[in-house]
């Protein structure tokens, strides 16, 4: 159990600033996910927390103690690597007990802790095997088991599921969620998969180009993104963005490609773009009020959902409408896309959120 504080953490590799001043607090027992596009610095930040790389400037505090110069093993931290990094020449049991052995723990103690962890992870039958005799999912469990036996104060996960196939990924995600419930330890999880972040995390940190864009609960980020980047990054399919013609509103209405849209809350600054999530749009008859006119360009049928791609009149861009269930929609059909004023996010020219949508049901009309 531990509370982690980062104060103005910076990291440069030569002239390149990878992290540009990160401030973050991870509360005791909290599950925090770092998300962001490739190269945003999320893995670097995790490596700094682990102690594998040195911090260029700033302070890292675990339970009130500055740990900038404390070696990894003394930080009370265990890390699960993306490639699992199991020692290929050691058996599963030796892999899991290696850290304890180095720490001078007695043989009986090591054995009982390894066996306990193996039982939890359902790998007891494989303790004598070598890593190469295991499947991907089993290796992943061993890697997690290696972290568990150390009974760390903080768990670090570096994209732990990215090497698994889709079905196994879902299974392991549930496994990690169960582990989080059971252990109640502080956990930090790096991923580029926002579904993993949304489902597992208590708190998500969105990073972009070495800076924190927003910190909040998964639903905070979904409902009230502070800027266009977060709005576009969280949510799948991603939010539709439409440029506001003339960069202004007229009596609470903005003109965009395909028609005009009313706003429920007036922005206090010049609106440059509006954003609406695909699941908050609805198809309607062409020419309806508060709707954008367009033509169905293509559809994707997922069974549970149907994605309709509509090319708006006078625009090359397509917007996505996510409809519930199976819908039969003809390609080329003229349609209207109803925009609920409550569902509209408004962004300024520099990407700040001026107006957030109200939390709402899917396809609400």
């Amino acid at each position: 159990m531990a509370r982690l504080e980062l104060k103005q953490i910076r990291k440069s590799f030569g002239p390149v600033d990878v992290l540009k001043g990160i401030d973050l607090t991870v509360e005791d027992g909290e599950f925090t996910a770092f998300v962001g596009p490739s190269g945003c610095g999320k893995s670097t930040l995790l490596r700094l927390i682990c102690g594998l790389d040195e911090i260029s400037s700033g302070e890292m505090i675990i339970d009130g103690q500055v740990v900038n110069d404390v070696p990894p093993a003394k930080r009370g931290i265990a890390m699960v690597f993306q490639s699992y990094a199991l020692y290929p020449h050691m058996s599963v049991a030796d892999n899991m007990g290696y850290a304890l052995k180095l720490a001078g723990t007695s043989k009986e103690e090591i054995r009982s802790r390894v066996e306990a962890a193996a039982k939890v992870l359902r790998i007891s039958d494989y303790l004598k095997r070598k890593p190469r005799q295991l499947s991907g999912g089993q290796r992943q469990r061993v890697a997690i088991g290696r972290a568990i036996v150390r009974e760390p104060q903080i768990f670090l996960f570096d994209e732990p599921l990215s090497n698994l196939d889709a079905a196994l990924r879902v299974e392991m995600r549930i496994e990690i969620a169960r582990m989080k419930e059971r252990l109640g330890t502080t956990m930090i999880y790096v991923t580029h998969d926002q579904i993993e972040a949304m489902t597992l995390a208590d708190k998500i940190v969105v990073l972009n180009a070495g800076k924190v864009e927003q910190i909040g609960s998964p639903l905070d980020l979904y409902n009230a993104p502070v800027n266009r980047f977060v709005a576009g990054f969280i949510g799948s399919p991603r939010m539709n963005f439409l440029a506001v013609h003339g960069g202004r509103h007229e009596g609470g209405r903005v003109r965009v490609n395909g028609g005009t849209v009313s706003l429920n809350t007036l922005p206090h600054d010049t609106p440059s773009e509006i954003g609406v999530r695909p699941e908050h749009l609805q198809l309607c008859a062409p020419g309806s009020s508060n709707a954008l006119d367009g033509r169905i360009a293509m559809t994707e049928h997922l069974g549970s959902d149907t994605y309709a791609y509509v090319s708006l009149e006078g625009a090359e861009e397509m917007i996505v409408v996510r409809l519930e269930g199976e819908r039969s929609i003809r390609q080329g059909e003229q349609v209207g896309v109803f925009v609920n004023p409550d569902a509209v996010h408004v962004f300024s020219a520099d990407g700040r959120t001026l107006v957030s949508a109200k939390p709402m049901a899917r396809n609400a009309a």
Partner: protein
Amino acid sequence: MFDLSSTVSKVVFGLLLALIGLFLFFPLYWLIISSVKSNAELYSIVPTPFPLAPTLTHFITALTTGKLPMYLVNSLIASGSSAALNTLLALYAGYSFAKYRFTGRQPVMLFMLSAQMFPFGLLLISIYPLMSEVGLLDTRPGLILSYIVFALPVSTYMLYSYFSQVPDELIEAARADGASDLRIFHTIVIPISIPPIVTVFLYSFMWSWNDLLYSMTLIVSDDKRTIGPGLLLTYLNEVNSDWGGAMAASLLASAPIVAAFLFLQRYFIQGVTAGAVK
């Protein structure tokens, strides 16, 4: 790869292989059969392709009357210790070049490899006075050191290329587990690097075992002489014509290398191809 589907290509390929095989193995074959022929048969005007009455006399004479056993032991000492020392040095050097970033890493490595570009006969000219200066001439340590000079650059490079492929995450995982740098090297990296280590050991062992020039020049006392010059001085001189003895002794001299290869060929091949296919 070659397309060996047609009969013609199969025949051509087979003939070529047979030709190469003939060139490679005929001398060896002749060595073996000559070592078991009697003197009378060896000196007959028409050479016999098979020994008519195989005999082990030459082997017994070589092992009991001459100094061959002593030469063999000397060689074993010189080659064994130079190979062991060389492998040990190359291990640490290769690992530091592969996994640590320090100023001058690249130039130092290039410098080391450049030693390989000089013909070794040429380097003898500078090694000889050097050894004489420090009093290592005609000593085993002197000979061992000079063998290491030659084997070390290539050995270091071989291990460097292998270690470069050891994933950093593995080393970092061990660091996070609380292992020191040396501990990581000894308990994680070395155990997974057995094939290239065996390869390097064999390479340097072979290099010094097969050497003639250095041993011939640096060693003058008969009691420290290694097998190469030993064979040469015993069997190749104006008054000698003991071909059977020479052949038997040569066979005995190559036995350790052949044995080592038979035992370790699995590692050797793994070591040579490691990283090539991954």
